[in-house]
C-alpha cells in the first residue's frame, strides 16, 4: 500500500480570511488538511468544539468516532495513520481526558507515527489555578510529543493548527498536541489558512550529500558478506520496491526490525526475517558475521542490537537515516547517509555493482536449515500452540484478495506473530514496537479498519492485553466494523511469565491471569464468536470468521506454559541466544507439555 507522503493541503477550500469561532476553526483546519475522521471523547472543556462539530458531522464532512477510553482514541488515530500514511487525529477534553491520551501518544511518537491530538483546556482566566479538570497538558505530554502547543489567543489558532499538521507529517513523523483554552474555542476571529510555514531550525528533510552516497556505495561494493538491516523507515518512505531492487541487484540478504517486517516479502530467498531478541538464530548470526552492515531507516534499538559493544563487532556500518540525531546515538557508523530514503536509495542503486555473494548466502542457508529442524512448526503437536494458530491464520488470510492488515498486541503472541505469520508487504503488520504498549491491538485495529473499510483486519491479542482495552468492542459495534479478533489465551501474562521462568526461578508472581468467557462477552456486545481448544478446530473456525460478514471473535485457548524461542537475554550479545530446545515433553506448571 503506497503511503501518501507529504500530502498537500487539500485544495477546493477557501484559504483566505473568513470569520469563525475558535471551535469552527479547528474543524475548518482539519478539512483543509484533508481530515474527515476523528477519534475522540467529549467533556466540559472541549464542549464548544463538539457543539460546532454538529454542523460538520451533519453534512458528512467529518465523522467522529466515540471511543470508550481516550487512550484508545490515540491508538485508533495511530492505527489509522499507520494504515494510510496520513495524519491521524484524536480529540479529548481537559484534565483526565487529556492525561488518558498520554500512553497512546507516547506509543505513536516512539514508532514515528503522525498523530495530531486536540485537547480542550480550562479558560485562560483559570489557567494555573488548579481549576476543575485542569492539568498541565503541555507539560505532561512534552516528553512524548514531537511538539505541542497551548493556545491562549484566537489569533494564534489557525497558524498553530497548520503548523501542528506540518510538524506531525514532515520529516520523521510524530505526535503534535494542540491544547486549546475553552474561551478561545468560544471566541470569534479571522480564519485564514494561506500561511507559508516558517519554522527556522526545523529541518524535516535534510539535504542529501552526494559524497555520502558514493562513500556508502564504495564500501558496499567491496563487501564479501554484506547484510541489510531494514527498519520502519523503509515503509515510512515507501521504498520497499527500491529496497528489493537493491537486494536483488547486489545479492544482499535482509534482516528486518519488528516494525520493518515485510520490507521485502518474507518468502524471498534473501529474507532472513526479523532479528534481535526473538529473531531467528540465523538472522542474528548473520548480523554478527557480516562484514558490511547496511542499516536503513532504523535506530539500533536495544531489542535489535542486544549487547551493544558486541553488536556486529567486525562489520563496517553504513547508516541510512532521516533523523540526524539517530546517527551516532547508539552505534557510530562508518558512513552515514542522512536524508529521505526516497531520495537516497534511488541515488544509491545505480552505484551498486551486480553481485551474488554465493558463499555467504550458502552459509546462511545452512544456518537456516539448522534452525528449521528444531522449529516447532515442523512437528505435529497434539495440543493447541500459538505458533500453529498463527501459521494457520496466515494460510487463511493468504487466500483472500482483500488487503490484509494484522494488528498485534504486546507479549508472546506478538513475537509468535512476527515469526510465524509470513509478511509479504511492508506495513501489513501494525504493532507497538518502541513503547510495547499492551492494549494497543484492538483500538489500533479499529483505526486501521476505519482507514480501509474493505481490508481484512485481524487483531491478534493476548488475554492480558486484550483485557486492557476490550471496552472498545462497543466502539466496533457502534461503528459497524468487521474487525476480526483472535485472542491467544494462555492464562498468563505470558511474556512476563517466560521471564519469570527463565530469570526468576519460575516464581509466577502476578502473571496468572483470569479471563472472562470471551464468547459470552462478545455476545454481550452483539459480536459472534467461537472458542478453539484443539488444533483441528483452528481452520474451520478461521473459515467461519472470514465467512461472517461483520466482526468475529475467536478465543484460542492455547497451551499455557510455552516459551518464545529463540531468545536473547537482555544484556547478552545477539548470537548468545537461547535456542529452541529439541522436541520432547516435560513436566510443566500445568501438566505435561511440549518442551519448546
Amino acid at each position: 500500500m503506497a503511503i501518501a507522503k507529504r500530502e498537500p493541503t487539500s485544495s477546493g477550500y477557501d484559504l483566505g480570511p473568513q470569520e469563525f469561532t475558535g471551535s469552527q476553526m479547528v474543524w475548518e483546519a482539519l478539512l483543509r488538511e484533508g481530515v474527515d475522521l476523528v477519534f475522540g471523547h467529549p467533556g466540559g472543556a472541549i464542549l464548544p468544539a463538539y457543539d460546532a462539530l454538529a454542523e460538520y458531522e451533519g453534512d458528512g464532512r467529518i465523522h467522529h468516532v466515540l471511543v470508550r477510553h481516550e487512550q484508545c482514541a490515540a491508538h485508533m488515530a495511530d492505527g489509522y495513520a499507520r494504515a494510510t500514511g496520513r495524519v491521524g487525529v484524536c480529540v479529548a477534553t481537559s484534565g483526565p481526558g487529556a492525561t488518558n491520551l498520554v500512553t497512546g501518544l507516547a506509543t505513536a511518537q516512539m514508532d514515528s507515527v503522525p498523530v495530531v491530538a486536540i485537547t480542550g483546556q480550562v479558560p485562560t482566566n483559570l489557567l494555573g489555578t488548579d481549576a476543575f479538570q485542569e492539568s498541565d497538558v503541555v507539560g505532561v505530554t512534552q516528553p512524548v510529543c514531537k511538539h505541542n502547543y497551548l493556545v491562549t489567543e484566537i489569533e494564534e489558532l489557525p497558524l498553530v493548527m497548520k503548523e501542528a499538521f506540518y510538524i506531525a507529517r514532515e520529516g520523521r513523523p510524530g505526535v503534535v498536541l494542540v491544547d486549546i483554552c475553552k474561551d478561545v474555542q468560544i471566541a470569534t476571529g479571522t480564519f485564514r489558512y494561506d500561511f507559508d510555514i516558517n519554522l527556522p531550525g526545523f529541518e524535516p528533510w535534510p539535504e542529501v550529500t552526494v559524497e555520502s552516497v558514493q562513500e556508502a556505495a564504495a564500501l558496499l561494493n567491496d563487501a564479501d558478506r554484506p547484510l541489510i538491516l531494514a527498519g520502519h523507515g523503509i515503509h515510512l518512505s515507501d521504498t520497499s520496491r527500491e529496497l528489493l531492487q537493491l537486494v536483488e541487484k547486489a545479492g544482499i540478504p535482509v534482516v528486518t526490525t519488528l516494525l520493518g517486517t515485510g520490507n521485502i516479502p518474507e518468502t524471498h530467498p534473501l529474507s532472513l526475517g526479523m532479528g534481535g531478541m526473538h529473531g531467528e538464530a540465523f538472522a542474528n548470526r548473520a548480523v554478527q558475521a557480516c562484514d558490511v552492515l547496511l542499516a536503513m531507516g532504523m535506530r539500533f534499538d536495544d531489542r535489535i542490537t542486544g549487547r551493544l559493544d558486541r553488536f556486529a563487532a567486525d562489520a563496517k556500518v553504513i547508516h541510512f537515516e532521516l533523523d540526524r540525531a539517530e546517527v551516532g546515538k547508539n552505534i557510530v557508523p562508518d558512513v552515514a547517509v542522512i536524508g529521505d530514503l526516497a531520495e537516497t536509495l534511488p541515488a544509491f542503486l545505480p552505484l551498486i555493482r551486480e553481485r551474488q555473494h554465493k558463499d555467504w548466502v550458502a552459509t546462511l542457508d545452512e544456518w537456516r536449515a539448522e534452525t528449521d529442524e528444531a522449529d516447532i512448526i515442523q512437528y505435529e503437536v497434539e495440543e493447541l500452540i500459538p505458533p500453529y494458530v498463527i501459521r494457520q491464520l496466515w494460510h487463511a488470510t493468504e487466500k483472500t484478495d482483500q488487503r490484509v492488515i494484522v494488528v498485534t498486541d504486546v507479549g508472546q503472541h506478538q513475537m509468535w506473530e512476527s515469526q510465524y505469520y509470513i509478511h509479504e508487504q511492508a506495513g501489513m503488520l501494525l504493532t507497538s514496537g518502541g513503547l510495547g504498549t499492551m492494549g494497543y491491538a484492538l483500538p489500533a485495529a479499529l483505526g486501521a479498519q476505519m482507514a480501509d473499510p474493505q481490508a481484512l483486519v485481524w487483531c491478534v491479542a493476548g488475554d492480558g492485553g486484550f483485557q486492557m482495552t476490550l471496552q472498545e468492542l462497543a466502539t466496533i459495534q457502534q461503528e459497524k466494523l468487521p474487525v476480526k479478533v483472535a485472542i491467544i489465551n494462555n492464562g498468563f501474562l505470558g511474556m512476563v511469565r517466560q521471564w519469570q521462568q527463565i530469570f526468576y526461578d519460575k516464581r509466577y508472581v502476578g502473571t496468572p491471569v483470569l479471563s472472562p468467557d470471551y464468547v459470552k462477552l462478545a455476545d454481550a456486545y452483539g459480536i459472534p464468536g467461537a472458542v478453539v481448544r484443539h488444533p483441528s478446530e483452528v481452520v474451520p473456525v478461521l473459515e467461519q470468521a472470514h465467512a461472517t460478514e461483520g466482526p468475529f471473535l475467536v478465543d484460542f485457548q492455547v497451551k499455557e506454559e510455552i516459551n518464545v524461542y529463540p531468545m536473547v537475554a537482555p544484556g547478552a550479545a545477539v548470537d548468545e541466544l537461547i535456542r529452541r530446545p529439541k522436541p520432547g515433553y516435560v513436566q510443566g506448571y500445568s501438566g505435561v507439555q511440549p518442551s519448546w
Partner: protein
Amino acid sequence: MQYTLVAWMRDKPGVLNRVSGMLRRRNFNIDSLQVSHSETPGISRMTFVVDGDERVAEQVVKQLRKVVDVTAVEDITNRLAILRELALIRVRTTPETRGEIMQFAEIYRAQIVDVNAENLVVQAVGTEDKVDSLIELLRPFGIDEMVRTGRVALCRGDERPKRRKQATAIFKAAASLNGNGRGEQE
C-alpha cells in the same frame, strides 16, 4: 571534557522548559545553562556547558536541533571565543580583614559593589577559572552568600557562527512575511 554550546530559540513561554526537559530526559550532564536575550528581538540565546566526550556533545547538539522552537545550535568549543562569568560574592569582614579582601579584589579586577559593617559584596567578572580562584582566596574570610551566572560566550570577529546568521535572516523574513501578528509579537 567541557564543551561550550550556544543555541538560539524563539522567545516563547515554555521554551526553556522544552530545552531543559529534553536535556534531563536524555540524561545529559550539563554543568551550566544560561539564558538571555540575543541581538534579535524574539530570539533568546542559551549558553550550555556540557560535560562529556565528543559523542555526547554531538548528541546534545543534534537533540537540541530537534526541539522545534530552537532555531540554531553551535558548538563553539574549538572556536576563538570570549568566555565569561559574573559572580557576586558576599564576604564577611572585620576592620582587620577588610583591607586584605579589597586588595584581593583589586588583583582580580573585581569591584566592591556593596559595603557595610559586617560584610561586603565583591563583583567578579572573568573566566570561570579566574572566578574560581578568587572564590578560593575569599573563602577563608567566610563567604555568606554567592551567586554565579554560569558561562556566557561570544565568538571573536571572524569566528562568528555562520549558520546562525542564516537562521536569523530566515526568521526575520518569516516574521515580516507572516504579517499575522505572530512575528511582531515575538
